[in-house]
């Protein structure tokens, strides 16, 4: 190999040029294929990531734990102040707990009076965060549960308190969650108490803006934002966060989920999730659109009222 380099240069150079050109062209062809038939290539991507990233597991877990320990150690420095803070918060929480208990009893009575059956379909699976997207332009995490555990594209994930994101890309042993902060994330939401519908647009910042709002003057900072269930994207009523007024008086959402410490995520099983089967297909498949849409609309109205 070392010998051909110089003497045969004038013969190998054109061949080399053709080979390199072919390689670049095939990469661009893959890009075109992805643009045209994205679901197929994304499935391939999910399978590849599924093969590669969990094999790092042995290294990922100890290093993550170690960095967690370092962070924990740093917080020992101000343990006294934290203790005081916690005591104060505990006192407040006791008052809230009392209020919550009373409300729970009242709620149970009212549910009993109305003969309401809560949705039994909404169970969940908990997964551990394996890896994050690794790129500053993408906000997503990889969970250690996948098709093996019955995960399906489009299901909602929460961190126990607030909505975190949406499953997008399922491998055999892993699945990817596109976070609400990702620039490709678009979530239909309802803003309580005014009950207005809007969209939450991820834009790579920690507090995504609210768009398509009919009358912004009815919204106040501190209003609760919950998922609306429009288009069968998410089950309705999941807590997303609170409205806050960003710079340029733009309405943004302060997310309830703690994005700085995502470790365990709950994936909500939701059988009515709309599926994307065909490239460029609409979010709602043709055969389901007659059935699901009115149902979803009804449940929303029931929720709002």
């Amino acid at each position: 190999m070392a010998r051909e380099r110089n003497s045969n240069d004038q013969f190998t150079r054109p061949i080399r040029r053709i080979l390199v050109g072919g390689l670049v062209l095939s990469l661009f062809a893959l890009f075109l294929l992805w643009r045209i038939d994205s679901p197929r290539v994304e499935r391939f991507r999910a399978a590849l990531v599924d093969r590669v990233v969990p094999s790092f597991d042995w290294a990922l877990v100890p290093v993550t734990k170690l960095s967690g320990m370092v962070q924990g150690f740093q917080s020992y420095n101000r343990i006294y102040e934290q203790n005081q803070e916690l005591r104060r918060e505990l006192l407040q929480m006791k008052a809230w707990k009392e209020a919550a208990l009373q409300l729970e009893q009242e709620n149970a009575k009212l549910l009993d009076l109305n003969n309401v059956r809560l949705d039994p379909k909404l169970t969940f699976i908990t997964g551990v965060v394996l890896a994050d997207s690794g790129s500053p332009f993408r906000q997503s995490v990889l969970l250690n549960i996948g098709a093996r555990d019955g995960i399906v594209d489009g299901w909602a994930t929460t961190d126990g308190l607030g909505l975190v994101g949406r499953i997008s890309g399922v491998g055999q042993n892993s699945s990817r969650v596109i976070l609400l902060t990702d620039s490709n994330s678009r979530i239909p939401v309802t803003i309580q108490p005014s009950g207005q519908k809007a969209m939450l647009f991820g834009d790579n910042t920690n507090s995504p803006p609210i768009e398509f709002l009919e009358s912004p003057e009815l919204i106040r900072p501190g209003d609760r934002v919950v998922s609306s269930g429009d288009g069968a994207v998410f089950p309705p009523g999941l807590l997303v966060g609170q409205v806050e007024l960003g710079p340029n008086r733009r309405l943004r959402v302060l997310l309830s989920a703690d994005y700085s410490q995502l470790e365990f995520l709950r994936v909500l099983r939701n059988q009515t999730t709309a599926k994307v089967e065909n490239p460029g297909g609409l979010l709602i498949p043709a055969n389901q659109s007659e059935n699901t849409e009115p149902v979803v609309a009804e449940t929303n109205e029931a929720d709002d009222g």
Partner: protein
Amino acid sequence: MVDPITARRISYWGLFVLIWLVILLIRVLPVDISAGGWPGPNWTILLAFSWVLRRPNFVPVLLIAIVLLIEDMIFMRPPGLASGLGLIGLEFLRGRAQFSRELPFMFEWGMVATTIFGLMVLHRLLLSIFVITQPSLALDIIYFVITIATYPLIVMISSRLLGVRQAAPGEVDQFGHPI
């Protein structure tokens, strides 16, 4: 039979993949997932570009293509776009490796910066032609500046610690051919 020069070259291929794997591992660690941080430099591109200007043999096209494509897949980028552009940049610089050897480092730095800038402009152009959501221009510019600012560091590490240096004029390999 493997002659020492080929063995050395293959060991540098291995070293490149090893460094890349370590960086990949660090980048996917789920330490802080919140958005809005500063984007880090593009380590793989910097490493490949700095090596190709010193020892073109240490970064074969096929290896870089595979590495960049896997990166595209794992980092959820449009597959094939950034890797194809990266290869174009790599080959552009490979053709000028001989030329930059005789010039001071500042010139090489400028050349790499221009190449990466050109690739960034092409990338944004292609993304907008194919109507794909792209990050804000400000974020891309910060990314570019950080990447360029890290280049001397990468060059220092790879030439001082890893021994990827330009062949001295008149240096010959085992068979007496100039490198």
